[in-house]
């Protein structure tokens, strides 16, 4: 079943075309990776889905019913589409527990479970500003998770993480996968992507270059030329 349906999307910044005629679907139950060279438009695509950037044309529908390009970022988040930013952004002045509480829209019952999921159960009182980089990444995933989103979008969740932390993150994503949840992951770490993704979309200069299994992407001439081979 389709969670997010992107159709004929065009995004421009002034004269610069960040995304051109992009169409893709994200299904429930899958982990969908979006890869591509720097500046391909991956983050911009997430920005459009989460309502931070308005496209010039094109539609983004949730569950085949709600048009997201007209909703505010707050409303989209409330509709169950949540996202982790590329640059880790947690509330430094608040404790881990308070961060998770805010993520869960105030539902305190979910805090403990989420904290266990991201391995911070014993750190609830700790100010978020004092966490390590990896812990901040996880805390942010936790905040996004706390409201049990239907669509979960992770922008570079393992950037800057150690191999061990990357493995843990992969396991975490595996446990998050479920029949009524769609997961989008943007990453540059190809091994990580191969481990977790059911399907990859390769973007290049705002257009789709390839769509299919990661193993096939690795064989694709064009993909090798513009991205993997470099």
């Amino acid at each position: 079943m389709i969670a997010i349906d992107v159709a004929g999307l065009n995004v421009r910044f002034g004269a610069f075309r960040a995304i051109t005629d992009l169409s893709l679907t994200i299904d429930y139950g899958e982990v969908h990776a979006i890869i591509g060279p720097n500046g391909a438009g991956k983050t911009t695509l997430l920005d459009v889905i989460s309502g931070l950037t308005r496209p010039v044309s094109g539609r983004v529908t949730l569950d085949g019913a709600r048009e997201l390009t007209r909703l505010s970022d707050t409303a989209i988040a409330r509709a169950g589409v949540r996202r982790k930013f590329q640059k880790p952004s947690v509330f430094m002045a608040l404790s881990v527990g308070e961060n998770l509480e805010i993520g869960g829209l105030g539902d305190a019952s979910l805090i403990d479970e989420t904290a266990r999921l991201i391995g911070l159960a014993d750190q609830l009182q700790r100010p978020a500003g004092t966490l390590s980089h990896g812990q901040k990444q996880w805390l942010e995933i936790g905040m996004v998770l706390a409201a049990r989103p239907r669509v979960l979008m992770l922008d570079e969740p393992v950037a800057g993480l150690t191999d061990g932390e990357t493995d843990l993150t992969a396991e975490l994503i595996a446990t998050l996968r479920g029949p009524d949840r769609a997961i989008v992951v943007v990453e540059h770490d190809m091994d990580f992507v191969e481990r977790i993704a059911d399907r990859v979309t390769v973007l290049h200069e705002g257009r789709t270059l390839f769509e299919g299994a990661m193993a096939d992407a690795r064989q694709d001439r064009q993909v090798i030329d513009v991205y993997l081979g470099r």
Partner: protein
Amino acid sequence: MTRLFAAVVAVLAAVAALIAVAPELLSPYLVNSAGQLAAFALLAVSLDLIWGYAGILSLGHGLYFAIGGYVVAMHLLKHGLAVTGRVPDFMQFMGWSEFPFYWAGFESFPYAAGLTVVLTLAMSGLFGFVSFRSRVGGVYFSIITQALVYVAMLLMFRNDTGFGGNNGMTGFSVIFGRDMADPFVSRMLAIGSIVILIAALLLCRRLVTSRVGRLVVACRDDEARLRSLGYGTLRLKLGIWCLSAVLAAVAGFLYVPQVGIINPRLLSPDVSLEIAVWVAIGGRGALSGAVIGAILVNGVKFWLSARAPELWPFILSGLVVLVVMAFPNGLLDLGRLRPRALKFLRPARGT
């Protein structure tokens, strides 16, 4: 911090009690000063709420302070006219025999008190709404609030607005039917101000330690993040902004009867900026810091204004530079002696 907060509240309560039980220990001047300082402290708390917690610096809080002040002054003049038959100076000055229509109803205290709140909510609500809606923030927001208070000052300086113009309003003779020169009245005003300050402190403390308080801090640190977690930050900011404005207006409402005069100079951008200075000196982001800062700075100012008033601007500017450069968290830094506070003693290194 909690200990400090408790100590501040206790001291305030003690002063109020002292004025109530043993007034003969304090000179009338001291009592009056205490009352005025309490009003300033309340004003500082209102600014700290919005600046320290929500990260929104208003350089125009004098506007709301003046709303409270003008409304109470209008009430006192109308009330004075009803009791003693004394015609306000500005009416004689303008040669008016009748009050302009918008002065109707001001002889009633509940009307004046209600109007202060309604008017402040309307002004701050409208301004906050248009600003926050278009995501005007940071320095832009600050200088627009400053422009707003400046323009309000220019408006009030005009004599034909019916608010006393240049000279403002003064000559308040009675309050609640009692002679304002009566020391009992001045004691009551001082005690009232301190009690309201304590109440406001407790209210604000509850607010900032609540979930809403945490959301406000979260919004300050990363608004976009908070929105992407499903929170409407407009309502949040607007709410705290309006609350802060109302507290400032209440402070003005308490201040003007005690100082006995209001004029447009209260709306000068410098006055509004000074409020921020009290908060910065006392310690931004801590309610007790705002109270301490307001009382300390104004205490020195009161003391100096009798001796060498021309020195005050130089002292004030020196204080600001010192605090801004060396004690980013104000006196609270001094209390904790954070290593950062002493940075200026060490040779500066590039960052």
